[in-house]
């Protein structure tokens, strides 16, 4: 049994059994992370480069921890201060790094499709750590893994993705992943932040009423308002957004039900999510971060088996 893909470019290219294999492997890595010595030598012969062309804190640290706990050698690259600022192309940057005998690439880029482009030019496994507004597959995998851990399974569960759907790569990857695993998905937010034709194109429900959606769902994955991706404002003010779509204690208490609260981080506290909810027992935000390392270990481990025709039994 092995992954059906050579790269993890997005959830769109994965089959259900791929996701289940990643989860099964991540379960065992989670056990490794509970041990006194949290390191295994599985990727001892592998060098991985983390190419971060866009800012990141938790994803980069999470990948780096995952790589180190698998025993891999790690090289970090960030675009600022590199030859990219001198005009070097993406292909040249990567080929130069690969000439130094690197076995895998983890890449974040602000351009949607950048890892797909790269995968056509280099033959080492590539893991997409977020490309523009397209996909963020490891985030979706760890989100689904966290829901599965909390609720037992994804099949038949009702998941709401709340907020800035338009600019969110997390939303798109989550929709693919949750649908593949049998969950029912509703996206909710201001009409200006929800792309048209989502129902028909992606098979999700669309709502513009946060209260109604929270009353319907088992899990609410609250997304960050991505002001850095908005050239022109798509809502009147942060305060008004918070009043209309912010998830707060008063709103949750009025529902008289338990809703599991998730957030991919970083949180704009007091905007899309209030602190008294983010830090409450409903929230599994820190579990998401913890599971991120195990899920990324699983992805790197399984993809490394694709290198040089390795087999996964």
């Amino acid at each position, binding site marked *: *049994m*092995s992954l059906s893909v050579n790269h993890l470019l997005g959830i769109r290219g994965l089959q259900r059994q791929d996701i289940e*294999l990643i989860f*099964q*492997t991540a*379960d*065992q890595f989670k*056990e*490794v992370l509970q*041990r*006194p*010595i949290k*390191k*295994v*030598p*599985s*990727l*001892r*012969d592998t060098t991985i480069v983390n190419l971060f062309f866009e800012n990141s804190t938790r994803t980069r640290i999470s990948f780096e921890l995952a790589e180190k706990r698998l025993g891999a050698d790690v090289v970090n690259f960030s675009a600022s201060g590199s030859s990219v600022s001198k005009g070097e192309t993406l292909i040249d940057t990567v080929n130069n790094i690969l000439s130094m005998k690197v076995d895998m690439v983890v890449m974040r880029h602000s351009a949607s499709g950048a890892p797909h482009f790269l995968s056509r030019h280099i033959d080492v496994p590539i893991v997409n750590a977020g490309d523009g507004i397209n996909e963020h597959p490891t985030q979706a995998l760890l989100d689904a893994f966290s829901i599965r851990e909390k609720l037992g399974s994804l099949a038949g569960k009702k998941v709401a993705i709340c907020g800035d759907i338009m600019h969110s790569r997390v939303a798109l990857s989550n929709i693919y992943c949750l649908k593949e695993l049998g969950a029912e998905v509703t996206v909710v937010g201001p009409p200006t932040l929800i792309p048209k034709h989502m129902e028909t194109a992606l098979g999700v429900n669309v709502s513009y009423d946060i209260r109604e959606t929270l009353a319907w769902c088992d899990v609410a994955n609250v997304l960050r308002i991505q002001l850095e991706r908005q050239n022109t404002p798509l809502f009147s003010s942060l305060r008004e957004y918070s009043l209309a779509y912010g998830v707060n204690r008063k709103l949750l208490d009025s529902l008289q039900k338990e809703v599991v609260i998730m957030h991919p981080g970083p949180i704009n506290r007091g905007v899309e999510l209030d602190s008294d909810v983010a830090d409450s027992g409903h929230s599994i935000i820190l579990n998401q971060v913890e599971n991120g390392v195990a899920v990324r270990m699983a992805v790197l*481990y*399984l993809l*490394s*088996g694709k290198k040089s025709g*390795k*087999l*996964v*039994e």
Partner: protein
Amino acid sequence: MKTILNGTQVAITIDRLCHQLIENHLDFSQSVLIGLQPRGIYLSDRIYHTLKKLLPGVHINYGKLDITFYRDDFNTQLHVPNETTIDFSLENKKVILVDDVLYTGRTTRSALDAMLDFGRPSVVELLVLIDRRFTRQLPIQADYTGRTVDAIISEKVKVRWSDRDGKDEVILE
């Protein structure tokens, strides 16, 4: 195909191995039993339950160890991991590793590596149902052996368990 052990012989052998363990470990207060995934756990389950019958009221620490991440062939093959369940420390304990067949010794070597991540045992012993002699690739020997078998490399020793394969037997194919 040749039967090495039939169902009755498997039961007698497991009983004998358990008595040998009791001779050396007495009340198991400082000893732990670790079955090696994936196939050693069928034997370790039997050993554990037989020991519990022979020593009623005695608590025996029993865990299952997967060695997938510690294999020495990760350059050529990757394997999907099995479950590891060891919810106690191995620090200063007498560890009894249990596997069904001792062949090249590489699984045992990986198990020694994996085990050290749970603490530093005072003693490590190896118990196997079948010891294939003359096939070792590493200097590893069993402390407790059910049956020693001479088999050529092209032959396979298969251990079948009633709870998984319908009946207990060991065959040479």
